[in-house]
């Protein structure tokens, strides 16, 4: 049977549907700059979710653990080969995501005879100042996007939009210079709030159009206090919060510091 361009398009659509269906169940990931570093936060069952890629780079994401692992390995391999051949300063998030990973994802997605990778990734590079921090979100089809100050990855566009809204609306409209010089505690609290809203928005996915309508008309689409608490108690029953700070002024070579449960406990509702 002949394989026509129409089939190809159809395949891509089916693949996208397949991936997006699976991503909807994933735990959202929040990335946020603060004074002392760049924070990544998500929740997990047993498997770790936040990883060090290189001296100033970290990665987290949602999706199939094996696919996340593939992307993580690609990033670590590329970063270390580059860091040794040139210098650690030449390993940038932009090169890792744009050169090493995105083309691979795109190829795999566009090849009709291969299973697509099921993941959404969030990469972060910590800079010397909060405004130098860079976030890259990476989609399963290889598409990537640069963000400053904060970034999110979640299973639906609606959830991402709600989370971004939460992260940015609470930043008072100041000059961009101090917009992200948030103390760690405040950043943690904000990231935890954003995660809950993302999780809620994923569950409220069926209401998507009407909620979006409300959001656009200026009415806040936010979970109630009780809903937030329910989301957390349900999540913490089976899993745990995972948060890591990629430290800005680390004397240690390893900048990525996983936060302990005690450190996180007081921020949870």
């Amino acid at each position: 049977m002949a394989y026509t361009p129409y089939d190809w398009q159809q395949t891509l659509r089916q693949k996208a549907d397949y991936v997006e269906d699976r991503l909807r169940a994933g735990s959202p990931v929040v990335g946020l700059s603060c004074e002392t570093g760049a924070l990544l936060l998500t929740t997990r069952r047993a498997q770790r979710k936040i990883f060090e890629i290189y001296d100033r780079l970290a990665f987290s994401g949602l999706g199939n653990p094996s696919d996340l692992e593939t992307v993580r390995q690609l990033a670590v391999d590329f970063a270390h080969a580059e860091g040794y051949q040139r210098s650690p300063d030449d390993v940038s998030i932009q090169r890792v995501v744009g050169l090493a990973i995105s083309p691979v994802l795109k190829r795999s997605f566009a090849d009709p005879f291969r299973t697509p990778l099921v993941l959404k990734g969030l990469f972060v590079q910590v800079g010397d100042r909060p405004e130098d921090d860079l976030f890259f979100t990476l989609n399963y089809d290889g598409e990537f996007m640069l963000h400053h100050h904060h970034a999110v990855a979640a299973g639906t566009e609606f959830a991402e939009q709600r989370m971004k809204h939460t992260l940015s609306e609470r930043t008072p409209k100041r000059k961009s210079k101090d917009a992200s010089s948030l103390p760690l505690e405040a950043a943690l609290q904000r990231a935890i709030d954003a995660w809950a809203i993302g999780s809620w928005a994923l569950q409220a996915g069926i209401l998507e159009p009407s909620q979006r309508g409300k959001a656009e008309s200026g009415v806040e689409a936010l979970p109630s206090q009780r809903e937030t608490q329910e989301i957390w108690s349900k999540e913490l029953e089976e899993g745990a919060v995972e948060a890591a700070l990629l430290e800005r002024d680390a004397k240690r070579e390893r900048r990525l510091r996983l936060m302990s449960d005690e450190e996180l406990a007081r921020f949870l509702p």
Partner: protein
Amino acid sequence: MERQRFQGDFSRLLQQAGVSLFNVPAGSAETLSAAHGTTVIALKYDQGILNVADRRATAATGILYDEAEKILMLDEYTLIAIAGSYAPAAEAARFLRHSFKYYARSQLQDMSLEGKLAEVSRVLSQSVPSVLQGIGGFLPIVSAHDRAKNQGRIFFYDVLGARFESREYGAAGSGAEKIRGAFEYIVRTRGPLHEMPLSDVLREALLLLDIAASLDPATAGLGGVLPLAKTITSQGIADVPEETLRKLQRELRSES
């Protein structure tokens, strides 16, 4: 997705990228100056390990540079002190740093001390062909805080990569040969180094370095640029403060 897995092996990753650690260029022994002399010392003390090195880099009979760093950090708990040809040694240290980091990050667990020591051996044995070409080998002393045993350990190597663990001290370089006996003398007359406080051990180390300098032209003494001194304890690696070194330098110089 089909891709090669390296199991955290950094040299295999580099191989695939077409990079090799030691390219052996064709050439004869006469065209390049031989191994560089130096003195590097690693001593145990009651809290950990002290590494001391002079900072002179020589080429043939001339002094090339008087601020060379011969004690290099491999990771948070491991130091390498190098004697011999600087270029391959520095390159090996850079390789090892990346190799340990690569293993830890890709495998999500730290490389064991044994694994790290074997990696140093492997690097040394890879450099053998270039040693035979006359490019010059290097002799490393690896000092590490063994977190499993919670103690400091010193290892030295021969040029082919054989590894030996040392109980009290390790020394390498042209100057070290001349003072090795003095370490034995200290251990036998004053007791094991690993029971002495840092201040005593540092004093002995600097004095011996100065003596080595007086016997070996390739070693810088306490007269000029301060030597480099680093410690490893359960807290990690730290520099011995410059004031401490300067104070000892003054004392020792006035005594001699």
